[in-house]
């Protein structure tokens, strides 16, 4: 299997901060893996993600996608090769659903028929009926539906890498469970590399083939959920696992 993403000793410090948001991080991710990045707010997980599509530039070190150092590639080209989904979704309110999904294909000057077919294909893929949804505006959709469109828009030009920054963070727990299951299915069928940032340990362990656990800009452990639960590498990881177990015990008391 080939390497999709590689961080080589990457550091990023924000202006005026006392410690590095990302502190000398090195890691490799294989093509087709579903990686979740887990940590509490301020741990650097979003910074790590945003250095992959160059929304942030590292202070030192390099980020390599499929063997290519992205600092040497035109930033717009890098971003168009990568799908990006954020918690606030950021749909364009003045565009219909199909115009939203077609944004990048249009910029790449696909012909109309190809765009229309792709929009319908993507809507079906994310579980929305094209006939019913393609001409709606974002304001006419529920939060869950909006995030489905956000996902479809990010998938539009078939990127090999998908970056997701707490995409289900603002969605109710029933819809979230459903979206998680569907996302797992999508991943299984597409063979893309997924990076998914979350602060929810259950979500991280449910979705990730491997989980990156971060704190204060450092990677504490990067392993399969099973290995992390069996052998937490660090007191912080231990406390995370314990907190999840405590929650589990809380529910068990009512069964």
């Amino acid at each position, binding site marked *: 299997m080939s390497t999709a993403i590689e961080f080589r000793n990457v550091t990023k410090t924000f202006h005026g901060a006392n410690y590095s948001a990302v502190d000398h991080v090195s890691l490799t991710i294989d093509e087709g893996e579903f990686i979740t990045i887990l940590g509490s707010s301020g741990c650097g997980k979003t910074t790590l993600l945003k250095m992959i599509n160059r929304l942030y530039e590292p202070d030192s070190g390099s980020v390599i996608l499929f063997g290519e150092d992205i600092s040497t590639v035109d930033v*717009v080209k890098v971003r168009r090769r990568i799908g*990006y989904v*954020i918690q606030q979704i*950021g*749909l*364009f309110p*003045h565009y219909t659903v199909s115009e939203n999904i077609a944004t990048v294909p249009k910029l790449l000057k696909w012909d109309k028929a190809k765009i229309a077919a792709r929009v319908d294909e993507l809507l079906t893929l994310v579980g929305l009926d094209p006939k019913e949804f393609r001409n709606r505006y974002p304001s006419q959709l529920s939060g869950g539906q909006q995030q489905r469109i956000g996902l479809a828009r990010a998938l539009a030009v078939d990127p090999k890498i998908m*970056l997701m920054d707490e995409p289900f963070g603002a969605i109710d727990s029933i819809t979230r469970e459903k979206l998680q299951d569907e996302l797992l299915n999508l991943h299984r069928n597409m063979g893309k590399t997924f990076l998914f940032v979350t602060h929810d340990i259950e979500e991280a362990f449910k979705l990730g083939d491997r989980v990156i656990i971060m704190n204060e800009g450092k990677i504490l452990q990067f392993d399969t959920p099973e290995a992390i639960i069996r052998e937490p590498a660090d007191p912080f990881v231990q406390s995370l696992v314990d907190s999840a177990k405590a929650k589990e015990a809380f529910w068990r008391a009512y069964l």
Partner: protein
Amino acid sequence: MIEYLTRYYDKLLTATLEHLEIVMITLMISLAIAAVLTIVSSYSKVVSRVLLNLFSMIYSIPSLALLALLIPVTGLGKKTAIIALVIYNQYLLLRNFLAGLEGVDPSIIEAAKGMGLTRMQMLFRVQVPLAKSALIAGMRIALVSTVGIATIASAINAGGLGGILFDGLRTMNIPKIVWGSILSALLAILIDRLLVFVEKRSEKADK
């Protein structure tokens, strides 16, 4: 009062049209320059701050003083008036344009950036359409202020309704003062309403 209107309606009409001409030429030039400055500012925060401070300083110069400063350079007349009005407008337009563009929901900007929109694509496909009402609001303020300051420009022989107003003041001719004021106020209100109408129409077209 009415007698003055019936006797000198052609003079009043000519002055109104002249006034409108100054306002329209000023608007076209102002918008073109403000558009370029807005685009330049979108590339650099420093440039945008420098421009805004510069124009706010100029804006604080009283209009008669600015006109007087320009006379040695560009002489008396319409040209000088239009130059002064364009300079004043830059502050109003640039400030409102930049505030409008910056007011667009940051998560929409981030999503657009992450999708690989270039700065120009971001500006014209996302920011401008979403900031449309703020942009039009800026134009309205600039237009109304142009109509007002243009009356003062007649002090340097630029013509327009200010000419009638100042004639009236010099000779204490009340009808001239009143008609000069009424017509310039009406002009400002009409132009403002026209822009409101345009804004409403474009909003309807969006839906």
